[in-house]
C-alpha cells in the first residue's frame, strides 16, 4: 500500500547509496525500506546467481567448493548459500540484495584540509604525480619506503577528490591500519564525514564521502567510489585472495582510478605501473637512511625455547635492550613459540608481554609499549606493519622461516628508526640458516638507501 505523504528519509539514501546489502539486514525501518522499494528506489538482486554458473552476487565468489546446498525451511526448496562471505550475514538463493538507484546523496564540495606539515621534495613530487593521475582518471602506484610519510602523501589527493565532489575509499587489508588511519584523517579533514568500516565496527551516521575500510568490507559496495586508494596493497591476505582483488574493482565505478600505496610492491604491480604512472620515494621523510638488517646465527633456537632456555645471543640482545632502556619487539615465527617464550622472557623482566592475531588486548599492549609502560613485546608477524614506536629495536627470531617473505622482513625492519630523534636502531635477523628472502630484503633496503642518497 502506498500512502501519500511518505518522504524519503535522508538516512535511507545516505546509508544505501553505493552499497549492496542484504534486504533483511538493512538498518533502516522496514516500513521505510518497503516504501522505497515500492517506489523503485532500489534494484533487487537475487543473492546467488545460478546461471551461467554459481556466483555470489555480493562477494562474487564463484568457487563451487565454497557453496553449500541445503533444504531450506524458508523458501521450502533446495537453497544455495555462499560460505565465502558468510561472516557478513548469510547470502542464499532466497535472500535479496538491494542496491540503491534513487537520487544521489548531497556531496559537499567544501572540505577543509587542516594540515600544516611540510613535504620533502620527494614527497611533493609524488603528491603532484598522484594528483596528475587522478585528474586524468589513471591508476597509479606509489612506492614509498617505510617511514616515508605515506599517510601524509594522501592528504592532497584526497582533498582534491573531495572538493571535486568525488567519493573516496581508502582500503587496506588490515583492521589495525584502518584504526590507525581513521583518527589521523578525522583530524586533518575536520569538516568531512568519514566512516571507518571493519568487522565489528559500530553503526555510523550520515553520508560518508570518505570511507576507510578493510578490503573485506568492499564486498558490500558496488560502483560506489570515484577514487580507490589501496594502502599496503601487498599485505596479507590481499595477495592471497583473488576475490578480494575483484572486490576492489567491484566497489569502484568503472572509470575510477586506483592508487596503490605500498613500501613493498609486488613485481606484478611494478611491471604494470613502473613505466607509466609510478612514484618512488626511496628516502624517509627525516632524511636518514633506512636501518639495514644484520644477520646473527641462532642455531636450534626452537629446541632451546621449547626446553625453556633463551638462546645465548638472544638473551644478551634482550638484556642489552633492558639495560639501555630501549623498547623492543621480538618477532617469532609461530604462535606456539610466542606462547612458550613469553614466560621464559618474563624471567628477564616480568613486564614483557606477548601478542598475536587473536589477542583481544593487542591494541592496549602496543599502546603500553609506546607509552613506555612495558619494556618489550614478543609478537607474531601481526605487528609487521602499521605500528610506530619511538626508538624501537627489533629482533626477528627464525628469520629463515617461510612466513618471512622479503616483504614481511622489509616491513619489520621498517619499524626501526622512524622518529627523527632516533633515526637509527638495531634490526637483527636471528636465523637458523640464511634464505633468499632474507638476502632480498637486505638488498632492497640497501638499494633504496643507495638511490635515496644519490638523488
Amino acid at each position: 500500500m502506498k500512502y501519500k505523504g511518505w518522504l524519503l528519509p535522508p538516512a535511507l539514501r545516505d546509508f544505501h547509496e553505493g552499497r549492496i546489502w542484504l534486504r533483511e539486514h538493512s538498518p533502516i525501518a522496514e516500513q521505510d525500506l518497503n516504501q522505497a522499494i515500492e517506489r523503485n528506489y532500489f534494484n533487487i538482486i537475487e543473492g546467488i546467481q545460478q546461471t551461467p554458473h554459481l556466483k555470489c552476487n555480493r562477494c562474487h565468489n564463484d568457487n563451487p567448493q565454497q557453496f553449500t546446498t541445503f533444504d531450506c525451511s524458508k523458501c521450502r526448496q533446495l537453497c544455495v548459500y555462499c560460505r565465502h562471505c558468510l561472516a557478513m550475514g548469510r547470502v542464499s538463493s532466497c535472500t535479496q540484495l538491494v542496491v540503491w538507484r534513487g537520487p544521489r546523496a548531497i556531496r559537499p564540495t567544501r572540505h577543509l584540509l587542516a594540515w600544516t606539515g611540510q613535504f620533502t621534495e620527494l614527497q611533493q613530487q609524488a603528491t603532484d604525480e598522484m594528483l596528475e593521475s587522478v585528474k586524468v582518471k589513471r591508476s597509479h602506484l606509489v612506492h614509498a619506503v617505510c617511514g616515508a610519510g605515506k599517510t601524509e602523501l594522501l592528504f592532497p589527493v584526497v582533498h582534491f577528490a573531495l572538493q571535486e565532489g568525488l567519493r573516496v575509499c581508502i582500503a587496506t587489508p588490515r583492521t589495525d591500519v584502518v584504526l590507525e588511519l581513521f583518527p589521523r584523517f578525522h583530524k586533518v579533514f575536520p569538516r568531512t564525514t568519514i566512516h571507518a568500516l571493519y568487522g565489528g565496527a559500530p553503526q555510523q551516521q550520515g553520508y560518508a564521502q570518505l570511507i576507510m575500510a578493510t578490503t573485506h568490507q568492499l564486498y558490500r559496495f558496488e560502483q560506489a567510489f570515484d577514487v580507490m586508494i589501496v594502502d599496503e596493497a601487498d599485505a596479507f591476505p590481499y595477495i592471497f585472495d583473488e576475490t578480494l582483488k575483484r572486490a576492489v574493482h567491484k566497489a569502484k565505478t568503472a572509470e575510477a582510478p586506483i592508487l596503490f600505496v605500498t613500501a613493498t610492491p609486488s613485481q606484478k604491480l611494478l611491471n604494470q605501473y613502473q613505466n607509466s604512472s609510478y612514484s618512488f620515494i626511496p628516502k624517509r621523510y627525516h632524511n636518514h637512511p633506512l636501518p639495514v638488517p644484520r644477520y646473527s646465527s641462532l642455531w636450534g633456537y626452537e629446541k632451546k625455547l621449547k626446553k625453556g632456555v633463551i638462546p645465548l645471543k638472544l638473551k644478551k640482545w634482550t638484556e642489552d635492550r633492558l639495560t639501555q632502556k630501549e623498547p623492543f619487539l621480538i618477532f617469532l615465527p609461530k604462535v606456539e613459540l610466542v606462547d612458550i617464550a613469553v614466560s621464559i622472557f618474563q624471567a628477564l623482566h616480568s613486564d614483557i608481554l606477548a601478542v598475536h592475531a587473536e589477542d583481544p588486548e593487542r591494541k592496549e599492549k602496543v599502546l603500553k609499549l609506546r607509552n613506555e609502560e612495558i619494556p618489550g613485546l614478543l609478537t607474531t608477524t601481526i605487528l609487521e606493519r602499521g605500528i610506530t614506536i619511538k626508538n624501537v629495536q627489533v629482533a626477528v627470531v627464525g628469520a629463515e622461516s617461510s612466513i618471512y617473505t622479503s616483504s614481511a622482513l622489509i616491513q619489520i625492519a621498517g619499524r626501526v628508526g622512524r622518529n627523527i630523534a632516533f633515526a637509527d636502531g638495531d634490526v637483527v635477523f636471528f636465523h637458523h640458516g640464511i634464505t633468499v628472502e632474507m638476502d632480498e630484503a637486505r638488498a632492497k633496503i640497501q638499494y633504496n638507501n643507495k638511490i635515496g642518497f644519490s638523488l
Partner: protein
Amino acid sequence: MNKKETHCLLCAQLLQSEPSWKTLLTKQFPPCICKKCASRFEHAPSPTALYQYNDAMKDYLHQYKFLQDVALAKVFRQELQDQFKHEKSPIIPIPMHPLKQKERTFSHMEELLKAAKIPYIQLLEKTTAETQSSKNREERLQTASLFQLLPSVTVAYKEYVLFDDIQTTGTTLRHATEILLQAGAKNVRSFTLING
C-alpha cells in the same frame, strides 16, 4: 551437503586427502575438518553427551546456528553415527518452533542427524517461539509445557531417545519427556551433543 570437502570447514585450511580406500573399507565419512580444529573439541566424560562446552564449541555453535552455516552439520557426523548406529529405539530430535525454524532456515538438530545419516522421527512440536535462554531459572521452571504432540501421531509403549544440542538446566528435555510419557511411552532417554 554431500560434497566432499577439500578444505577444513572451520579454518579453511587445505585438508590432507585421505586415501579413498580407507573411507571405503571402514565406511567412514571423509574428514571435513582438520586435525587441529578437531583437537580443540573436548570429549565429554558422560555417556549421555558427546562433548564438553568450551571455546571451540562456542565458536562452532555461533557459526552453525547464528551465522546459519548449515554445512557445519557435517562436523560431528562420524561421532554421531558411531553413537547412534546401533540405537534400536526411535530417535526424536528436539523440534524448533515453526517460526523460529523458518527464520533460521533449517532445524539444526535435524540437520545434524541427516548429515550423520541417522534416521529419526518427529512426534513433538514446540508450542512457544520464546527461547529458554531469555528466561531466568524461576521462569524456566514454571513455564507451561514447551511441547505438545503433533496432531494425529501415536506414541507407542516403547522407549524413545530425545536428541538435543546442549543440556543446561534440563527444562527442555524434561518437558519433552513428560509429554511422551503422558502419551504412553514406556521410557524416554535423552542424549545431547554437548554437556552444559
